[in-house]
């Protein structure tokens, strides 16, 4: 057993500060255990959101020594405990209290994404190779660590023109769905603001589900936006031969 100092943010909408807690830690503990220990022994009013303690509910996101992470999945032996360890709430979202932040902006921005739309009389048989890509995106646990990390939201506060990596992943899961016939490219280019993303990949670095956010979702979506808006040659050929890519679309439009 050893003793470690934790500097935990205490405060609310009006501001706050880091407060020191010295805790006896044991082998195998995660940061969330420490927060619970502080709650149990020193600060019963310390607010923290958690649920599964298994990295699956996505509630316990915070910043440990400056790195956005799930507290329940951050073992103490992966951080330097010889120095005080700071624990702050996610920087990008308004603090409700202490470590709990208000993430409802994500649900508001999500409304920009048109829902799944199958063609009329869809044959619901799907092949595994058609849904592999989409299944990667469905692993998302909505922890919003990627949203918190993305510098467009975090540093530039672009919450009106940009939907952020999590919602780009969601758009990709719909756009690449073999049975979906909706077109979300206009949304991506305009209200979705995919052009704000400069593919610096920090979102991918924090995703606890190891979704290849940039390589598999954002860049392929950027390429689809290029197909539609920035590639006159492709557009010319598509017009010449009639777009074969998504015949379902025109069919759906007719119905």
């Amino acid at each position, binding site marked *: 057993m050893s003793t470690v100092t934790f500097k935990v*943010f205490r*405060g*609310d*909408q*009006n*501001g*706050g500060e880091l407060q020191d807690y010295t805790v006896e830690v044991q082998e195998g503990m995660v940061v969330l255990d420490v927060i619970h220990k502080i709650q149990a022994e020193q600060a019963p009013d310390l607010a923290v959101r958690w649920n599964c303690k298994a990295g699956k509910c996505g509630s316990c996101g915070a*910043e440990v020594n*400056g*790195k*956005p992470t799930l507290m329940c999945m951050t073992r103490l032996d992966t951080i330097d405990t010889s*120095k005080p360890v*700071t624990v*702050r709430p996610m*920087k*990008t*979202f*308004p*603090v409700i209290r202490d470590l709990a932040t208000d993430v*409802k*902006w994500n649900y*508001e921005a999500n409304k920009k994404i048109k829902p799944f739309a199958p063609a009329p009389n869809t044959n619901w048989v799907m*092949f595994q*190779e*058609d849904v592999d890509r989409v299944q990667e995106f469905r692993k998302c646990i909505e922890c919003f660590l990627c949203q918190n*990390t993305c*510098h*467009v939201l*975090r*540093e*530039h*506060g*672009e*919450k009106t023109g940009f939907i952020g990596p999590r919602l780009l992943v969601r758009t990709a899961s719909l756009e*690449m*769905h*073999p049975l979906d016939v909706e077109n979300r490219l206009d949304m991506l280019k305009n209200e979705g*603001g995919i*052009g*704000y*993303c*400069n*593919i*610096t990949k*920090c979102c991918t670095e*924090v995703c606890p589900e190891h979704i290849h956010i940039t*390589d598999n979702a954002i*860049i*392929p979506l*950027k*390429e*689809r*936006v*290029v*197909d539609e*808006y*920035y*590639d006159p040659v492709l557009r010319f050929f598509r017009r010449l031969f009639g777009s074969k*890519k*998504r015949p379902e679309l025109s069919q759906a439009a007719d119905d």
Partner: protein
Amino acid sequence: MSTKPVIGTDKRLTERQDLWWLEPLLVAVVLTSFVIYTIWAVLQRSDFHFGPYTSPFYSIPFTSAEKLEWLPFSPAFLVIWIPIGFRATCYYFRRNMYRAFFWDPPACWVAEPKRSYSGERKFPFVLNNLHRYFWYLAVFALFFHIYEAGKAFFFEDGFGMGLGTLIMLLDVTFLSLYIFSCHSWRHLAGGCLNCFSKHKGRYTLWQRISQLNEQHGLWFWLSLMTVWVTDIYIRLLSKGILTDVRFF
């Protein structure tokens, strides 16, 4: 609804305790040195040729740089804009460029200088959307690199292989891996489809490219290094500072 983060206004740069500045620093140093070297090599107009070897900077389609001596500018300018354009618009390079040179952001979770930001929505960065056109051109240029590497087996005294041949072969290998692991190519080859089951051939191709694409960054650096080493090696041979090692 207030979206303003309460603690977003503080002045901390970061609470990261690791060497987060090392990667952008190394990238900036290596890329800047490469750019300076390239400008110098291109302006030299000499020492790009030795025996059967030609520097990749001077690998000119359908002709050779020697035949273009009469040009008022370095013949390298005829082709150098292709790899420059391809690399500058490469998705992997963009990640590094924005981090190392624009500090947008310098590293993850590190504060940025406060200034307006429009990402890739406006000029000049909106031009990155032209990456696929540079990919087409890069494939075209690659064929001539492969041709030059083939020529590197044919010495004055007949067929053979030297250290220069090996370096040039490595160069075209890494260039091919870099070019064919490109994100735009991955999209054009199959990523643009929604129903892979209806396009088995393209699906297989897309899977192969996806495998290569996972290491796209590695291929970027290795091919950059081999281009650099190839030019330096040929230059040193041509200046008589080194003698070529002949294997057979």
